[in-house]
């Protein structure tokens, strides 16, 4: 009797262990989702993540925001900045990678070396001088400091990603294109860029997520409530209510994370593979 039992149970054990771990791990997210439908009293009183009395009014109350600025404004600002950053990185990293990986010119090794060297530059060292320069230009409290650099291929992670991917594409493509009379620009646009789709997708998804979650630089550069993004707006909401409106606050936390959860569901395989092949941090 015993061997039969063990044969039935043993393969299930790792699954049970994994599922138990996942329940603990994802509990805070579930709790946030549940709490966004609870009254503030119930959040404090109950351990269960499932709301006893559904309070969808949290969303309306939270969405109204604080001091006359609604979350619609924050959501719009976050979206504009994130989409701008995505377009910037896709454009600048692909053309830069193409030039560094495929074109013949003097100083190519040096230029590529510098580009890769900038991978090692921590952003803290640039924070203050960049702020002062943007301050001089009168760009503080605009989106420019957050979006414009993305069009200048200074996000070394993504440049590196595109460079590596471009190097993996067969050289024969360029040679065939050259024989057919294609110049460098047409070769890039018609031959290589279509093949860059996986690298472009990884660049786009991760640029979006990182910009969406970014708090530090948005906190520094955006000063007026009409300019705030979701992370900054959520922080201000927390300060303004000093934790007394937990229900609406969790509702807005949920709204902030909703686009990421949607991206996760749509692209989970791509996200995980992007991490595995490039060695990104999350």
């Amino acid at each position, binding site marked *: 009797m015993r061997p039969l039992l063990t044969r039935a149970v043993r393969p299930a054990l*790792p*699954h049970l*262990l*994994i599922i138990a*771990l*996942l329940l603990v*791990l994802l509990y*805070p*997210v579930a709790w*946030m989702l549940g*709490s966004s439908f609870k009254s503030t009293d119930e959040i404090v009183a109950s351990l269960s*993540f499932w709301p006893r009395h559904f309070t969808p009014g949290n969303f309306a109350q939270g969405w109204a925001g604080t001091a006359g600025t609604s979350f619609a404004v924050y959501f719009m600002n976050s979206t504009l900045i994130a989409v701008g950053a995505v377009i910037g990185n896709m454009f*600048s990293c692909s*053309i830069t990678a*193409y030039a*560094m990986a495929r*074109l*013949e*010119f003097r100083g190519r090794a040096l*230029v590529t*070396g*510098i580009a*890769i060297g*900038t991978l090692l530059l*921590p952003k*803290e060292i*640039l*924070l203050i*001088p*960049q*702020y*002062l*320069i943007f301050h001089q230009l009168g760009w503080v409290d605009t989106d420019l400091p957050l979006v414009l*650099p993305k069009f*200048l291929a*200074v996000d070394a992670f993504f*440049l590196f990603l595109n460079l590596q991917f471009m190097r993996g594409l067969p*050289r024969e493509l*360029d*040679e065939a294109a*050259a024989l057919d009379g294609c110049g*460098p620009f047409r070769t890039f646009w018609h031959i290589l860029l279509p093949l860059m789709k996986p690298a472009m997708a990884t660049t786009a998804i991760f640029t979006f997520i990182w910009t969406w*979650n970014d708090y*530090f630089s948005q906190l*520094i550069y955006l000063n007026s409530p009409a300019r705030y993004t979701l992370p*900054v707006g959520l*922080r201000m909401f927390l300060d303004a209510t000093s934790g007394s409106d*937990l229900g609406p606050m*969790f509702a807005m*936390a949920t709204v902030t*994370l909703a686009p*990421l*959860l949607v991206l*996760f569901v749509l692209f989970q395989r791509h*996200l995980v593979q992007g*991490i*595995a092949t490039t*060695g990104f*941090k*999350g």
Partner: protein
Amino acid sequence: MASATAESVAVRPDRSTAAPGLGRRPGKRQGGPAFILLSPWIIGTVGVLAIPLLYSLYLSFTSYDLLSAPHWVGFANYRRLFTSDPRYLHSIQVTAEYVVTSAPLKLLAALAVALLLARPRRGQGVYRALFYLPSLLGTSVAIAIVWQGTFDTDGPFNGFLRLFGIRGEAWVSDPNYVRWVIVALAMWQFGAPMVIFLAGLKQIPRELYEAAEVDGAGPWRRFRSITLPMLSPVILFNLVVEMIGAFQAFTPAQLVGDGQGGPVDSTLFYTLYLYQRAFQFQQMGYAAAMAWVMIAGLGVITGLLFWSAKYWVHYGD
């Protein structure tokens, strides 16, 4: 970052292997188009990286409050950091304690779960993605707020402890515990290094394990003598990435703590103190000096890790 240094070495052979006459006519340079395509990068590297870098070095030797022009003070900022700013020294201690606890614990969790997931079984892809999810959300303000709520006195963590008759503490407002709440938040995001460990585990040839099993090696022995050495380059990579990331932590310190480094400066992380000096006290020169000390520290630690590699990292044959 590990791959970055490997990469700069790999640049050279790439050029030498470009055999002449293979489609690219010798002598025909593409300098013009290259210059056009590289112009955004050149503007960016000069304007957003190189000039700010030099400017920041200059500022670190000045006193600058944004109102009047910076004036030269020599090494005064650096001297003051180490001789008459106890909060600064304290912030180094807080950060160092955080780095040496959070990075190894996170990697331990990552490795343990990676080993659990390594064997192909049904649902592996979904499991892997779900374990990765916290890494995707974890750096956000929303999660930092949720985290604070989870460990609040009336939060679900204490509610859970109550089920076992344990009375929980005020984890977030107690200076002895709040740093562990932040370490837990870092550990929670073990998914990203876990995915990298999984990719590394896949690279280990199965025959090694089969041969070891034939020789009578048990699971622990196989782990110690095959898995660990074969995985050591990936461990080094993850360790460098996680330690550097931990040094730069800002959002959790600002949002799980009280935002000013409290309670009683127990969450005064390096970046948080730098932020205060620069953007709350407008001491740009002083903060620039802080940034340069930080970079030097990061450089030394990364250097030490790579130096230590020759004693414990196994680079195949």
